[in-house]
């Protein structure tokens, strides 16, 4: 069932993102990936029952290395802290995911919270994406330092984001709280501006 009542908070920015993107193999593209299923999990990773129960539902064990994520099938699990993870899944997948996780984890000291509305996602991709990120983030964005499989909670511009290194194109996916989304889009479009002129 398609949810016709929902609106992305930056739906009105879609055309600006299309216009602001630069085509070609030296280009850069910005787009929103709205309405992804997002579920926050708190739990004790030392507890084997917890780890196996989550794995049973999402298909993969929660990552324990700081600032990493793992992907299996439809689901990506981000390490957010020693006892906190975020599962990202397909649009409209959140209800099923929450139910299955709560069932599987019943009786354990955990928290399974649907946070699908808590952040939206932006994909910045293309040859100039790395330069745009270098203008926007104080962390090392070079290919050898920030690789697919890594994700950090940092700032892009002045917006707090969960920043995922998605692939080598490179594509950076930013999970941003909706209240900051328009600011972040404006910031990134501004940083992309010069690549129309190069």
């Amino acid at each position, binding site marked *: 069932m398609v*949810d016709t*009542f*929902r*609106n*992305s*908070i930056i739906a*009105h920015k879609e055309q600006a993102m299309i216009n602001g993107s630069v085509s070609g193999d030296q280009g850069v593209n910005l787009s929103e990936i*709205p*309405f992804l299923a997002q579920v*926050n999990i*708190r739990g004790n990773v030392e507890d084997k029952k917890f780890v196996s129960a989550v794995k049973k539902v999402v298909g993969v064990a929660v990552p324990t290395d700081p600032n990493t994520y793992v992907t299996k099938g439809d689901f990506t699990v981000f390490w957010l802290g020693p*006892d*906190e993870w975020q599962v990202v899944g397909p649009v409209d997948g959140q209800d099923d995911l929450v139910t299955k996780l709560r069932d599987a984890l019943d009786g354990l*000291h*955990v*928290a399974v*919270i*649907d*946070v*699908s*509305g*808590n*952040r939206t996602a932006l994909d910045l991709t293309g040859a100039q994406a790395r*330069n745009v990120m*270098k*203008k926007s*983030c*104080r*962390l*090392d*964005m*070079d290919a*050898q*330092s920030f690789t697919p499989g890594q994700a950090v909670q940092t700032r892009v*511009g*002045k*917006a707090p984001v969960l920043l995922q290194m998605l692939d080598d194109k490179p594509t950076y996916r930013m999970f941003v*709280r*909706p*209240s*900051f989304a*328009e*600011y*972040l889009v*404006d*910031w990134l479009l*501004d*940083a992309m*501006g*010069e690549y*129309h*002129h*190069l």
Partner: protein
Amino acid sequence: MTEKFRTTQGTRVDRSNVINFTFNGKNYTGAKGDTLASALVANGVHLVGRSFKTHRPRGILTAGSEEPNAIIQLETGPRSEPNVRATQIELYEGLTAKSVNCWPSVNFDLAAVNSVASRIFVAGFYYKTFMDPKSMWMTVYEPIIRRMAGLGVLPREKDPDTYDHMNEFCEVMVVGAGPAGLSAALEAGRTGARVVLCDEQPEFGGSLLNTKQIIDGKPAQEWVDTAIAELESMDNVRLLKRANAFGYYDHNYITVHERRTDHFGPGAKPGLSKHRIWHFRAKQVVLATGSHERPLVFADNDRPGIMLANAGQAYANRYGALPGRRGVIFTNNDSAYSVAIDLVDAGMDIPTIIDLREIVDGDLPNAARQKGIEVLTGSGIVATLGRKRVTGVEVATVSSDGSKITGSKRKIDCDTILTSGGWNPAVHLFSQSIGKLRYDEEKICFVPNISSQNERTVGACKGSFDLQSALDEGAAAGAAAAMDTGFGKGKAKASPKALVVEEKAIKAYWVVPTDHPVGQGKRKHYVDYQHDVTAADIMLAAREGMHSVEHMKRYTTTGMATDQGKLSNVNGLAILSSQLEKDIPKVGTTTFRPPYTPVNFGALAGRGINGDLADPVRRTSMYGWHLENGATFEPVGQWQRAWYYPKAGEDMDAAVARETAALRDGVGILDASTLGKIDIQGKDAAQFLNLVYTNAWLKLPVGSCRYGFMLKEDGMVFDDGVTSRLGENHFHMTTTTGGAAGVLDWLEEYLQTEWPDLEVYCTSVTEEWSTLSIGGPKARQLLEELAPEMDFSNEAFPFMTWREGEVAGVPARVFRISFTGDLSYEINVRNWHGLHLWKKCMELGEKYDITPYGTETMHVLRAEKGFVIIGQETDGTQTPQDLGMDWIVAKKKGDFIGRRSFTREDTARENRKQLVGLVTENPKEVLEEGAQLTYERVNPTPAPMVGHVTSSYWSPNLGHSIAMALVKDGHNRMGQWIYAHDRGKVTKVKIVSPVFYDPKGERRDG
């Protein structure tokens, strides 16, 4: 060719590419590759400015970033830039520039009368003159000083250009692309490590661009070209030209100012940032920043036509611009002899070299003698002639200790003096990195000694002035630095072979005598050109007790101009040390601070200054609707909240009157999404709330809500909100808008450090939910239409409970809580459904004349009910009892944060400031928030102030003004009249209960 001093010899200019430019209103031509300074030299223009205090004519002194005199205003209009160095401006077609600090013109400057009065501009002049009376500091003295001290002029218009920042990480950062830096970058780059090489000049090559050196039997430029080509072929190497490393901070953090488009001319590259600040974090740093030639301090050493020797060499060799027709060279070392040879080869007449050393027998001096140049040993220039251009010198033998002239004077005609007092390694960045310097007695300069960071210094910056050392040290450092980051084996390839001519020792000679003692006649020995500080000033400072080099610097302002004393600092401290009869190392140097050269404010600000990019604007999911429907906005932290919704012709008072009436009589709707929300779950969740709130939580039924206060350990209220029990072990907490992040941190801190045994997880869900508050007597009817399947009767859905259900077709949590005193529901839906629900409410509510309202109306309504706002009624020094809310503190439940502090003497005492209501004697008068309160109308001075107004509004519902205030002993003074003071106005006010409206709470059920 109109450029009369242009030769055919310059290697780095393209004479066929003629560029037109204007300087001080006159048109000139230059060549591609010129700087503004070299083009002026090629046209024979040396007079480029007036000195700072005495407005003496000044000429181009250097060919680099250390220039103190050729400070100009570039362009006009909004893109105009003040105080830039002509020696660093690349010439472009149509360039327009003018001198600063002269009026009406550089040739005829009225303030030059100051030079007649220059005896009064002595060291400490400002301290001595502009002291008393104090009342004149701001009114008379500052305006005078500002006018006198004016350099360039800032444009008044908004800067049309943009500036940006870039963050980079690398294994090896090399600063300076002369022979040492190029070698280092090559070796480090060959290992595959990420290498950055930056240089302030438009071309790499450093000193090799200016000199005629030989590497591997060929002109050095060939080696430079090969090196650049190899570096450009490496993907792991980033090359930055026109990029000045201006700051070196902790953790090998280096900031670089890159001038990206200046050389194309103003506005020529739309879309590109004009300048860029690079933030580099390097694992290893190689400093190859070279050295600056040091001027000699002699009588009237500031006339136009007097130039550093290496600058003359650069103009002739690099730019093909002769500094003059006939020049003398004045030196205390061998390096200036190569200048003499090059200038003679370039076609200039160099009749004489005046050398302060008694014995001059090095290879270079002998080569100069073979060119027919006369060498005067043990001699100095004791006077210079001319005014707007030097016309000659007087030379004589001088005593070895610098005290006096020993021989008879002889006059030599010349239009140029090229002077060399030795070399100062450019240790600025090294010093900024907290590296320790050492004074080298043989080389007569400060050199790097002990590094404080992962850093290596090479070449001239290390005091290794010969080319072979620069190549060898650079290569070794580049390889070693890379190895330390895990790249390569640390072995450099064999360096190319430079042709090195051995130089004989330099002689320290700090002030050259003239025919009167320094400071006692007309002749001036300038040390700091830009700030007009003379040797006499420094001597006076020493006599007046400024024995610390830091005191001398501030008293005389040596080294405090925009050139940061690149030429003057060592001469200045050497003169101080000789006055104090102390060794130079004992006097020490002043502190080097960023920036190395001035950096534009725009560049430092980057994109963070531009409207919405300056600071994030946080928007709720309904923000767009508010905007479209004419809301005015109020910033609450980073949030933009709807403030009120004026209809056509309404001011704020009218809009708020309409909105408040709707809430009391009809139905209103508020976007309350910014409230903080925290999901709390775990088997100890209720116990945890019992510990962090002052009231009891264990027995709160599932489905119910409760209002709570959180205290800090000192017993003072720090946040409040309603928390609802979602399940046996599951709660939904709300916090204030501003407190959301702080409360979550606070809860986490206590869970992690004090109560790790509690099984509780707290998760921020502030933005998961959009929150709409629907209030007023007709709210229930609207809710019933929005959610036909839910029962909103008082029996089924009483006050302070919550229900889950579908509202307007989307899942929702509905909370029956009230911040207005009237019937009210807060509906939480997923963020992406917020806009849909709002629109649906407006649509279904139209028949009830549903009224959107903003934060102002919310504040008025809650004040009518006496509800506090944390941060408005409180400032971190109020207990719940002070706020008249003793009822919220559980007496029997046991411990909670802050409880212990209730027994502190200060917390338990009488006469604390307490929250009360105030009404004014004249009910129409609205008090000013923040107004101070006194018990009496007339008070002694200082007045015994007993509190202040925290909130004050006109209440349209009540028809009179209302206010809340913190008043000493307020709770015992109900009914008493006291006085509010606002900038001289006194208002009589009565202390009343802060609950002005519906004190029995009869309206909350609708």
